[in-house]
């Protein structure tokens, strides 16, 4: 396993139960134990309904478990307030979504700067801008900082989203089907980018149902009916 042996994500006997009415309840997650260490590249796989979206919400501190404990970067988030969760999200996790979710009115640069708005940062605007421009260069969009999302291709938009996810220097990049809306060439580029980031020490958690995409990851976790049915380390290819 790459990196230091420090757990950045730890789930202990986590349940997520959705009830419709009083009688019918569904266990989206039932008794999941999981530990992801710093610097890992993990793919969480499974068909729809397997609980992988719920998993992503819990790992991403977007939702709290019905039962069990979740540690993010050593902090037990199960009992945190909404605002504290927001703070943790902003600091520790960078989200990359399937449909990019950029703000259409903002330029690439402004989209990347957006998460900094919500952090109590005392950096000057110039400094923030410099930092964000560097990130856009890192994802290969140094020339397109002032373009609106509508003026960018899908692959380019996803790169902006990745730059945005990196802006607060989070421990974890949580990517939910990041190539789901892209053609195969763009998909390849995005996966290469994620691989690079992992090499630079970021922990990457990839949620996908696509085996070829998952193959980039070094560890595969398969979910079925809210339970982990497979957890294996993949051998480095090349």
């Amino acid at each position: 396993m790459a990196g230091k042996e420090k757990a950045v994500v730890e789930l202990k006997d986590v349940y997520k139960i959705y009830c419709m009415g009083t009688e019918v309840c569904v266990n989206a997650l039932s008794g999941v134990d999981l530990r992801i260490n710093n610097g890992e590249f993990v793919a969480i796989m499974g068909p729809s309904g397997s609980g992988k979206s719920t998993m992503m919400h819990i790992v991403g501190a977007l939702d709290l478990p019905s039962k069990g404990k979740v540690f993010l970067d050593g902090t037990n988030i199960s009992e945190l307030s909404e605002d504290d969760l927001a703070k943790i999200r902003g600091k520790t996790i960078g989200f990359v979504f399937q449909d990019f979710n950029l703000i259409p009115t903002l330029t690439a640069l402004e989209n990347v700067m957006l998460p900094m708005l919500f952090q109590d940062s005392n950096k000057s605007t110039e400094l923030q801008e410099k930092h964000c421009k560097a990130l856009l260069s890192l994802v290969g969009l140094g020339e397109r900082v002032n373009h609106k999302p509508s003026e960018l291709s899908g692959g380019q938009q996803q790169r902006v989203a990745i730059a945005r996810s990196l802006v607060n220097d989070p421990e974890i990049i949580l990517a939910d089907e990041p190539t789901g809306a892209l053609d195969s060439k763009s998909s390849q580029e995005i996966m290469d980018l994620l691989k690079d980031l992992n090499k630079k020490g970021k922990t990457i958690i990839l949620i996908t149902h696509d085996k070829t995409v998952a193959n980039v990851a070094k560890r595969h976790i398969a979910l079925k009916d809210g339970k982990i049915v497979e957890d294996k380390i993949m051998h480095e290819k090349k």
Partner: protein
Amino acid sequence: MIGILNFVIRNLRRRKLRNWITIAGIIIGVIAIVSLISLSEGLKSAINNEFNNLGTNRITVTSKYASFGGSRSNQGLTDNDIKVVEKVSDVDFASGSLSGFLETKYNQKTLMTSYTSYDPEHFQEMLKQNNKSLEKGNYITDEKSKSVIVGYSYIDESKNKDLFDKTLDLGKKIKISGTDYTVVGVLKKTGDVRSDTVMYISNNNLKEITNSETYDKIYAIAKEGKDVEVVAARIQNKLEKARDAKDIIATSPIQESKSQQDTLGMVTIVIIGIACISLLVGGIGILNSMYTSVFERKKEIGVLKAIGAKKRDILMIFLLESGIIGLIGGTIGVLLGFGLAGLVKLVAAQIGITITISITLNIILLALGFSFLIGVISGMIPAYIASSQAPVDALREE
């Protein structure tokens, strides 16, 4: 904060048409409020100035049933009433007065001109009570002679366009309701256009022209150093007894000013109340627009929360947005409101009525603050709904 403001402004630009429609609702309300306040404040200060110019020991007696215009009721004030008032202790002297608009012709041009008449015996004293005195010529001393004293505007060349196109002067003849009158005196300039365009003739002449037996008003001048309000009460008492009817009012300038201000204040409150209703409707427009916006942007709210936006950040974004909608509406409304007040002034001037409008920083700040506040208040519920959205639910939205 500046970042959030920038973000909010970008968002507003996104739904231009809808936002402008929403803003229009606020604009209409603010126009109504600003123009009405501006006009009524102007009127208030005009009344104040007028009363400040009046003699403080002059008591005005009017009949409660005095009718406007030409026809005067038989409850009007008579020569006998003047005698009664003059006998009241501490009254120096009393004099009747009439006023009205009459057709006046000079230089082939006919205007409706404001007239006031006094008793020739007290002409100078009555004008002095109005803070007026002669620029040149003489006061009217004979009640039968067809003499007129004119305000300063009639000899002021710059006012020609609004008046007879030609200046008047001593000795010139004008036709008042068909009869020739000679200008015997010109009054000093007061600076108030309305006041400077009044013409003065004798009571006898005005009674004849209007076919009236009675006076509109009796002015009683209290002796120097006496309490005017006490004398006014005494006059009221005596006159009611003499007339055997409770149909007259005797007021001191202080009371008069106060009661006019009170009436005006009440009218202002009612009018502004009505204007506020339209602003409220504008606020509901904002509420509706923001409410829709929250639902449309559910996913965006989810994304913002995912990238670290706290509840209060989302709250701030939406409140600022609705506040800015209110503020933009307020700004445009203030400009158009003053524009409308100015237009009213212009139109009124065309038909010969002078209106003062008041444009003060207070009105501007009040209107802007109020419209921003309406925006913020209208945005509260939608903003709260937006901020309480669970990030997972918001993100799930497609």
